[in-house]
């Protein structure tokens, strides 16, 4: 492999683990190069100037180099983008990071996903600060709406868009007064006993969630879709978040 030198690349740390006594191995989601493993040497020392920067959910500008799969961090700076996940939003951040890790492969650039991810973190930051909101949603529901939007966009950008534009049987447009069955591999089929309302399908297509029913049905659909594509390897964060939510 030839030497790679990348300067000032926008990126977010998805996950980090300790390496030896004083170092960290970072999984960084970069804008133009996808997910890259980067070794940050000596940053866990008492007087490290970068330890406070190398945290997930912070917009960074990273420089790195190296020939091998594991690159070496040469410089890092904060970008002037305000993302500060607290409380509920922080837990959702872990979930979103796992989604990225599972659906975007290493070295596979996804600038659109990167932009959506950044927006998602900014929205999650805002949601926890606002006391009022137009739809009258609680912070938990607002957070859910942000997550659904992110999931929908993610699926679309990586070529796994939902089949919800038309009825899979009749190819008729979505009827907002009807009920539908949803299957990840086939799409939506109108049926009187369907578990999802036409309104929700329309909300998914429009990517606008304004009521609690649409949100909870959309959650069911997205869970279905994600599980289908993960082929039996469940997300680690989901079970834990469910457990955490029970307490909050």
């Amino acid at each position: 492999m030839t030497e790679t030198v990348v300067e000032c690349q926008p990126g977010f740390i998805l996950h980090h683990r300790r390496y030896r006594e004083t170092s960290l191995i970072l999984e960084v989601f970069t804008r133009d190069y996808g997910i890259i493993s980067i070794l940050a040497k000596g940053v866990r020392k008492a007087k490290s100037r970068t330890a406070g920067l190398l945290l997930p959910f912070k917009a960074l500008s990273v420089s790195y180099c190296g020939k091998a799969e594991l690159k070496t961090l040469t410089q890092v700076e904060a970008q002037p983008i305000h993302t500060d996940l607290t409380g509920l939003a922080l837990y959702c951040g872990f979930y979103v990071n796992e989604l990225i890790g599972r659906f975007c492969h290493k070295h596979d650039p996804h600038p659109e996903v990167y932009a959506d991810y950044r927006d998602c973190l900014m929205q999650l930051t805002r949601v926890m600060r606002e006391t009022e909101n137009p739809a009258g949603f609680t912070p938990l529901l607002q957070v859910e709406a942000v997550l659904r939007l992110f999931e929908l966009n993610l699926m679309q950008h990586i070529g796994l868009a939902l089949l919800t534009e038309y009825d899979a049987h009749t190819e008729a447009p979505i009827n907002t007064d009807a009920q539908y069955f949803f299957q990840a591999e086939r799409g939506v089929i109108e049926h009187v006993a369907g578990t999802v309302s036409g309104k929700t399908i329309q909300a998914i297509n429009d990517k606008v969630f304004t009521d609690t029913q649409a949100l909870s049905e959309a959650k069911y659909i997205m869970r279905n879709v994600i599980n289908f594509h993960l082929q039996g390897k469940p997300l680690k964060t989901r079970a834990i978040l469910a457990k955490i939510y029970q307490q909050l």
Partner: protein
Amino acid sequence: MLNKGLLGQLIQTLCCLPGVGPKSAQRMAFYLLQRDRQGAQRLSNTLLTALEKIQHCQHCRTLTELTVCEICASSSRDQSLLCVVETPSDAWVVEQAAFFKGVYFILHGRLSPLDGIGPDELGLDLLEQRFATGSIKEIILATNSTVEGEATAYYISHLAKKYQLQASRIAQGVPIGGELEFIDSGTLSQAFMGRKNLD
């Protein structure tokens, strides 16, 4: 040839210590065998006994050879003030500073959903059981200032609220003697958010 046999095995085994590479392991092995065989004997005996006897304190889960550690059993400590830390070494650091008069609870980790570590894996039900006994009035969350540490503190503060306990998070920011010029922006923004009135 040298790295075969018992000597080689000893050197290799010493490498399991943090910060010890093959070079220092080699030095240690030769030192123990040549210069201080008595010391080596003591080390090996103590290590064996420690391994055999040291367990987790039933109350705080710190490392101790007692069923309930000295701090938890002490009548001079405030048993209603609980400091929650991630590791026994964190408790040790707080203890060395000698200003804290309460008791500890060791998590032995932190919530890390991406690694599959949730409240159950951390044994937080044990902490909740202690909250439920009503003996604790206040908790101080001294988990690390990482996202996992924050996630852990937030969760435990909610548990505490359920039992009407007062919960606080240790402050983060500019270290004593620290100059702003040398502080990273993350720490600095924490310091601004955690500012205090000067009246």
